[in-house]
C-alpha cells in the first residue's frame, strides 16, 4: 500500500477536472441517492470536495472517502445537469481506479475480474453451471453475479425477488451469425452483453428476429466479452483494457455499418467509455474510435436509420417507459424508444419522473441494497400510478431491478424490453 502522500499525488492528477466544480450545489436537485439521504457526502458536490480534500492532503481517512465514493449509482444524472460542465463520470471512474490501486481489490472481486470476467469462456461455463444448480450454488452464484456486471442485480440474496439465470443463454441459442444485408441494404454487428446473454436471452432473440424481418444483415461473433463497465466501476483498469481489447479483436473481424446493443449500459460504455478510458495498446485506438462511432441503441437504429414509425394503438396494452440513465443522460436517447412502443401498438402512458434512475447501479445495488430499494420503490410507485399494464425499458439491468421492486409491491405489472414488445407486434402482424 502506498502512503497517503502518494495517494494525494495521484488525485492531484484529477485537479484540473476537480477545480471546474464551482460548488454551486445544483446537483442536489437531481441526485437520486441524495434525494433519499439528504447527506452532502452522497451528492456530487460532496464527493468532489472529498476527492479534492485527499488531493490537497486535508484528509487522512482515505477509506472513508472510498466508502462515500461508492455510494453512487454512476447514473450520470448530475453530469447531464451540471451548469459548470464538470466531467463527473470521468472523475469518478478515474478516482475508483486510483482507490483500487491503493487499497487493492477484494479477494472475491479479484477472482471474478481477473479470473473469470477477463476469461469469457470460463464465465460462460460457470454461469452455465449456476443455471443448472441454482439452489446448490447459491452463495457462489451470488458473489459471481453480484459483482460481475456493474449493473447486475444480485439475484439470490435476502428478500430479493429475482430473475434467475436463463436455462439456455443466448450464446447457446444462437452461437454465431454472419448474414448478409437484405432488403434494407444495411448490415449491423450485435453486441449481446452479459445480462441479456445470461438472464434475458429472449431480449436478444427478439432483437435478432426484428433485424431479420427488416432485412438487416447481422454479424454476431462466436466470442464476445463483457463490455467492461463492472471492472471499470470497481477501478479495475487492467481488466477493463483486456476486455475492450478482446472485443475489438473479435468485432473488427466482421464488416458492418453499425454496432447495435439492446443494453443501454453497454451502448453508453462502448460509445463513451471505450474511447475515453482505454489505457491499453495504443495501436487499438483508431479501431476503438471507429467502433464507438458506429455504436447505436437498437431503438435508435430502428427509428433513426430504418425509419420505423408510430402505428395506431393495436390493443397490446397500456405501456409506460422508464428511461435508463445510460441512454438518457449520456446519449440523450429518449424519443426513439417511445416511438418504438407506439410502433408496437402500445397505448402510451407517461409516468412521473420517467427519467429518474431506478436505483440499480450494479455493485451499488449489492453493497447498498436498502438505499437501492428505497430509490426503486419510488420508481415502482410512479410506474403503478401511471396506470400501465406493462413497463417497458431499454436496459436489462433496469429490468432486473424494476422486476424486483414491482414484485415487492405485488403490482402485477409486466416488465419488458421495448424490442420484445415490437417483436411481438411483428409476430401478430406476421
Amino acid at each position, binding site marked *: 500500500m502506498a502512503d497517503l502522500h502518494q495517494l494525494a499525488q495521484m488525485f492531484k492528477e484529477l*485537479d*484540473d477536472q476537480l*477545480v*471546474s466544480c*464551482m*460548488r*454551486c*450545489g*445544483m446537483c*442536489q*436537485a437531481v441526485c437520486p441517492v441524495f434525494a433519499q439521504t*439528504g*447527506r*452532502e*457526502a452522497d451528492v456530487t*458536490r*460532496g464527493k468532489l*470536495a*472529498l476527492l479534492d*480534500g485527499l488531493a490537497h492532503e*486535508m*484528509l*487522512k*481517512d482515505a477509506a*472513508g*472517502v472510498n*466508502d*462515500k465514493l461508492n455510494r453512487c449509482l454512476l447514473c450520470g444524472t448530475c453530469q447531464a445537469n451540471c*451548469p*459548470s*460542465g464538470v466531467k463527473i463520470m470521468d472523475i469518478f471512474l478515474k478516482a475508483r481506479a486510483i482507490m483500487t490501486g491503493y487499497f487493492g481489490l477484494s479477494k472475491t472481486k479479484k477472482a471474478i475480474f481477473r479470473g473469470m470476467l477477463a476469461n469469457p469462456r470460463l464465465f460462460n461455463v460457470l454461469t452455465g453451471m449456476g443455471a443448472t444448480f441454482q439452489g446448490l450454488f447459491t452463495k457462489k452464484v451470488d458473489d459471481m453475479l453480484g459483482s460481475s456486471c456493474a449493473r447486475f442485480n444480485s439475484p439470490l440474496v435476502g428478500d430479493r425477488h429475482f430473475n434467475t439465470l436463463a436455462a439456455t443463454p443466448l450464446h447457446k441459442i444462437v452461437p454465431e451469425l454472419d448474414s448478409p444485408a437484405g432488403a434494407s441494404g444495411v448490415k449491423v454487428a450485435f453486441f449481446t452483453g452479459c445480462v441479456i446473454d445470461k438472464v434475458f436471452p429472449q431480449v436478444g432473440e427478439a432483437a435478432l428476429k426484428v433485424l431479420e424481418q427488416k432485412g438487416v444483415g447481422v454479424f454476431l461473433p462466436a466470442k464476445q466479452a463483457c463490455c467492461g463497465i463492472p471492472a471499470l466501476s470497481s477501478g479495475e483498469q487492467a481488466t477493463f483494457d483486456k476486455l475492450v481489447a478482446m472485443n475489438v479483436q473479435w468485432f473488427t473481424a466482421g464488416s458492418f455499418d453499425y454496432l447495435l446493443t439492446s443494453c443501454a449500459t453497454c451502448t453508453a460504455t462502448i460509445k463513451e467509455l471505450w474511447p475515453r478510458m482505454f489505457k491499453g495498446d495504443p495501436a487499438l485506438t483508431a479501431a476503438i474510435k471507429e467502433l464507438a462511432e458506429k455504436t447505436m441503441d437498437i431503438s435508435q437504429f430502428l427509428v433513426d436509420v430504418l425509419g420505423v414509425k408510430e402505428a395506431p394503438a393495436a390493443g397490446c396494452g397500456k405501456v409506460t417507459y422508464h428511461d435508463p440513465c445510460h441512454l438518457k443522460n449520456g446519449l440523450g436517447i429518449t424519443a426513439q424508444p417511445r416511438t418504438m412502443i407506439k410502433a408496437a401498438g402500445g397505448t402510451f402512458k407517461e409516468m412521473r419522473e420517467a427519467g429518474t434512475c431506478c436505483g440499480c447501479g450494479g455493485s451499488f445495488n449489492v453493497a447498498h441494497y436498502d438505499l437501492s430499494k428505497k430509490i426503486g420503490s419510488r420508481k415502482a410507485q410512479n410506474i403503478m400510478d401511471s396506470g400501465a399494464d406493462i413497463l417497458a425499458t431499454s436496459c436489462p439491468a433496469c429490468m432486473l431491478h424494476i422486476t424486483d421492486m414491482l414484485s415487492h409491491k405485488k403490482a402485477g405489472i409486466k416488465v419488458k424490453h421495448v424490442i420484445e414488445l415490437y417483436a411481438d407486434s411483428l409476430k401478430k402482424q406476421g
Partner: protein
Amino acid sequence: MNTSIIKEFAAIVGDDNVMSSETDRHVYSYDAAVLDSVMPALVVRPENSEALGKTVKLCNDHGLPLTVRGAGTNLSGGTIPHPGGVVVLTNGLNRILEINAEDMYAVVEPGVVTAKFAAEVAACGLFYPPDPGSQAVSTLGGNVAENAGGLRGLKYGVTKDYVMGIDFWDVNGNLIKSGSRTVKCVSGYNLTGLMVASEGTLGVFDKIILKIIPPPKASRSMMAMFNSMQAASETVAAIIAAKIVPATLEIMDNFTIRTVENFRHAGLPKNAAALLLIEVDGHPAQVADEAELVEQICKQHGATELKVARDAAERDAVWQARRDALPALAKLRPTCVLEDATVPRSKIPAMIKALDDISKKYQLTIGTFGHAGDGNLHPTILTDRRDEKEWQRVEKAIDEIFNRALELGGTLSGEHGIGLAKAKYMVLETNRGTLDYFRRMKSVLDPKGILNPGKIIG
C-alpha cells in the same frame, strides 16, 4: 469534539443524525462562495422543531459556535462554519405545514426547497414569486436569512416582501414568535423584519409564514438587441417612465451574449453590445397594451433587433438565453466569482463602464449580466484560483467593484448576502457607529456569540 457532548446531541436528534467522521464533516466545510473551507467539529440534523430548539440551547450551554445550513448555496460564505463549531442542517425540517388559499398565506418549516414550495402553491392556483436562480435546491430558510431575490424583483419584490412572520429559537432555547397570519399586524417590535437577511446570526428559524398571491393571467416575453449599453439603459428608464413595470427586465453585456451564443447556438447576434430580456404580465388586455408599448419604446431607443415570443416554446427560448448566462460563463475558466454589486437603475451604464475599466486594468475576464430593472448586476469574474498572481488581481478588482458601486450610490450586495466574503466592506457602505450598533444588539441577543460568528459584522 469530546464524546460526552456528542452523546448529548445524539440524545436530542438520534444517533443517525449526528455526524462526526472526518469525511462527513469535510463536506459541510464550504458553500458556493469562493472562500477557504473550515471544518466543523460536528454536524447534526434535527428532524423536528423541538429537537432544533434543544440543539440551539445545547450549543449555547457549551459555548459552541452554531451555523445553520440549508442547501449551502449562498455565495458569501454564510454557511462556512466557525472552527470547532457545529453545523445544524435543516433538510430534515422540510414540511409544508399549511397552504391557506382563502387567506393567502402558507406556513413552512425552514428546510422546504423553494421550487417545491412554489410548485405546491401553484397547484393550489396561487403564486409565490421569489425565484432565485438556485430555487431548485435552495431552502426557504436560506432565502429568508439571505433575503434572496430573483428575476421577478422589479415588479414582485424579493423574499422580504413575502415574509409575514417567523417563529425562531433564541440562544436560550426559547421559541420567539413574530408576525402573524394577517396582512396587518402591529403587535410589538418587527422582529420578522430583523430576522430577514440576518444570515443565522440572531436566531434560528423554526417556522416561516409566507404571503402568497394570485398568479398573473397572462404574460408576454421579448428580447431586444442594442448597439450600446447606453441605449439599452435608456430603454429601461423609458419603459419605467411610461409607467410600465415589467415582471422581469434583464440585461446582458456583449461578452455574455457571445459566450451564451457559443454555448447554445440559438442565434443571438454576437456583435450586439447589449441585450434586454423583458416580460410583462397581468390581465390579458393590459399585457397586450403594455407589450406593444414596450416594443415601440425599444424601437424608439434604437433596438437593432426585436424578437417577441409568440408561444410557450418561443418564450422558453427567450428565457433559456438568460438561464444559460451563468452556466455558459462558468464553463470558460475553472473559477467563477459571481458578484452582485447593485446600483440605482439610472447608474447601470456608469457601472458597466466601470466594470469594463476594471477588467482592462487588472487584465481579467468579466462577463456581466443581471437585473437591469432593479440595478442588480452580476459581474462574473472568470479566473483560476490556483493562479496566485491572477488571484491577487481578482481580489483587487473585487475591492474596486465595491468601491465603484458605493460611489455610484449603490450597495455591496443586492441579494447574495454579506457573510464572510463582504464583512470587511460593511464599514464602507455604513459607518463605524452602525457596525457598533449591530454589535451591541448582537451581544445582547447572543451574549456568548455562538450564532454564526464572523458573518456580516466580522
